[in-house]
């Protein structure tokens, strides 16, 4: 039974979400504040988390950062606003996905399930990228000296999926489908922000990328 952590300050929404996820067979831990949520996570080791952005005290973004620093679990941000800056901030703070209120509950359910279904593709071949070696069957990226570069599971998946098509271009929609497991929703900003975060980690000069290249009007490709 998957464990889900819900951090939401609105009592009604929190209760409704708890009822819905319990109805779908989840064990639910819920918390009205970020502080309580992080404490709860430390005890319960949830498989997935839903975090509201507007929280009293510790903000949703801060909660997200705290959870991310402790674990690779999928985090879905629930934002009251749809502005790009909020979405970007949410994803920058370590979330894998976001939904905006008022959300369609089935959509939230589908996204959470997609994140849980996702497992790293261990069958792919290891490949070299400059100073870095990507080793899918271990799920790690190592420098020449053997030290590890930390990627979130979403970032790792993004990188290995782009590598698996041998330099072909993947559109944002393709990537949403492959990496996030969404076949009919999702937002291209989700891809763009994750690509940017990935570039910060793997590109020698993130401003003019040489590996993760944007193909104008089409999508992204990995040049090895």
């Amino acid at each position, binding site marked *: 039974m998957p464990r889900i952590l819900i951090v939401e300050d609105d009592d009604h929404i929190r209760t409704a*979400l708890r009822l*819905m996820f319990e109805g779908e067979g989840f064990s639910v831990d819920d918390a009205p504040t970020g502080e309580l949520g992080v404490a709860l996570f430390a005890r319960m080791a949830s498989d997935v988390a839903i975090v509201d952005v507007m929280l009293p005290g510790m903000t949703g973004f801060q909660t997200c950062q705290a959870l991310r620093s402790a674990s690779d679990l999928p985090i879905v941000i629930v934002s009251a606003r749809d502005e790009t800056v909020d979405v970007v901030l949410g994803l920058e703070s370590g979330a894998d996905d976001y939904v905006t209120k*008022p959300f*369609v509950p089935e959509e939230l359910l589908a996204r959470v399930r997609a994140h849980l279904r996702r497992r790293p593709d261990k069958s792919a071949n290891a490949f070299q990228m400059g100073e870095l070696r990507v080793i899918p069957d271990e799920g790690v990226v190592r420098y020449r000296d053997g030290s590890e570069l930390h990627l979130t599971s979403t970032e790792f998946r993004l990188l290995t999926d782009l590598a698996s098509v041998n330099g072909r271009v993947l559109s944002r929609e393709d990537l949403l489908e492959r990496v996030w497991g969404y076949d009919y*929703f999702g937002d291209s900003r989700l891809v763009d922000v994750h690509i940017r975060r990935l570039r910060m980690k793997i590109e020698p000069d993130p401003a003019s990328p040489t590996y993760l290249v944007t193909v*104008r*009007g089409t999508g992204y490709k990995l040049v090895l």
Partner: protein
Amino acid sequence: MRQRSLRLRLLITFGLGALIVSGLAATLTYAGVHRVLVNDQRQTDLRQAYVNAALVRSTLYTSPTQLANELNAIQRATHSNVLVQTHHQWLSKSTGAATQDVSRKIVRKVLAGDPTEQIRNVNGQLIFVVGVPIPAVETQFFEVFKLNSLENTLRTLLLVLGFGALVTFLLGIAGGLWVTRRTVRPLERVSLAAAAIAEGNLSTRLQVTRADREVQQLTESFNEMVSQLVERLERDARFASDVSHELRSPLTTLATTATVLQQHRDELSPAGQASLDLLVADLSIFQSLVRDLLEMARTDAGAVPLVIETVAGVELVRQSVRSAARRQGIHEPPVEVEASVGDPLVSVDRRRFERAITNLIDNAHYYAGGATFVRLNVDGSQFAVNVDDAGTGVALEERDAVFERFFRGRAAHDRGLARGTGLGLALVRDHVRAIGGSIQVLESPEGGARFQILLPITAEEAP
């Protein structure tokens, strides 16, 4: 009614006014000066005539034979002709004198013993005739003065006054131009600013310049009015936005609880199940409505900055159509590209373009049985994206109105549909305009509606 131009009227008023005033002044001046000059001349001439008459009298007493010489001497000295008559006979006259200059009337009066004067016009020449009786020797003395020099003076005066009137008239026109500039210019600026505001350029204000008090007052009240209007517009927009924001949390709870109820659908009675279905259906409309309202409020407030990218047009449409159809879970219409299209680049906000396409495909889905094709062609320097359907089309008189907020056309009424939010097409227009394009409704080759988005082409071929 013919529109009269304030500018023209001001000019005419000033010009005519100046002309009338200067003409009147010139006429009065001329009349006055004429009177004074003629009077002066008359007095001088009269005095001289009496002196000359006295001279003639003494000559007639002392040496009558010298009369002719004497008369000529007078003529030389005074440039006037002198004539002397006795018993109706001309006794003598100076050499230049003509007897017809002296009328019978004046001769009669002088014969009766009255000194007489008369101004006559003889052959276009103005003359001043003075007759003086000399009863002691029973003669009559006449002196004829030419008024040539006076006439010349008066003509010069007339010329000067006429020139003065002309200058005044021109000055009047110039004054009119100046006043026009000062009064009509500000009016024109107000009119331009009002037009700009009407076009939606709400940040337009009149520049406060150093000007007349009235103009400055106009400028200030105009700007004040615009600020008030803008504030009010913003308040209205904020209200819609605030209401929608407040609806979000309860709506989220409602939707989530409805989902929980659906998990327990089997435990409900048939009536409960039917009610739940209605609840879920309307909740979804309610959610879409709040979503659209929020999007609209954000667009209105200009809170969403445009993220303009230059992208390949055809690929952009393909991707947008695909993700729109998937997102809505509806049939994906095929994209048909006309051969002449090539590979144009367009500059768009990808997200907003996708929203526009999503709403158009949605609209076709709700009201026309789904979009049949998305056809692409190039119209001059514009990239045309046509979302076609095979529905009943949009009546000519509704083709502008469909883009109004909460407009429900015949199609919606006829089919008893209330599934759309009434905001979808209005949002499409907002998005398309924001990325510099335009949208219109035409007829599709299938006889249904064609929603055509025109985007300016940034460059012909992708590099």
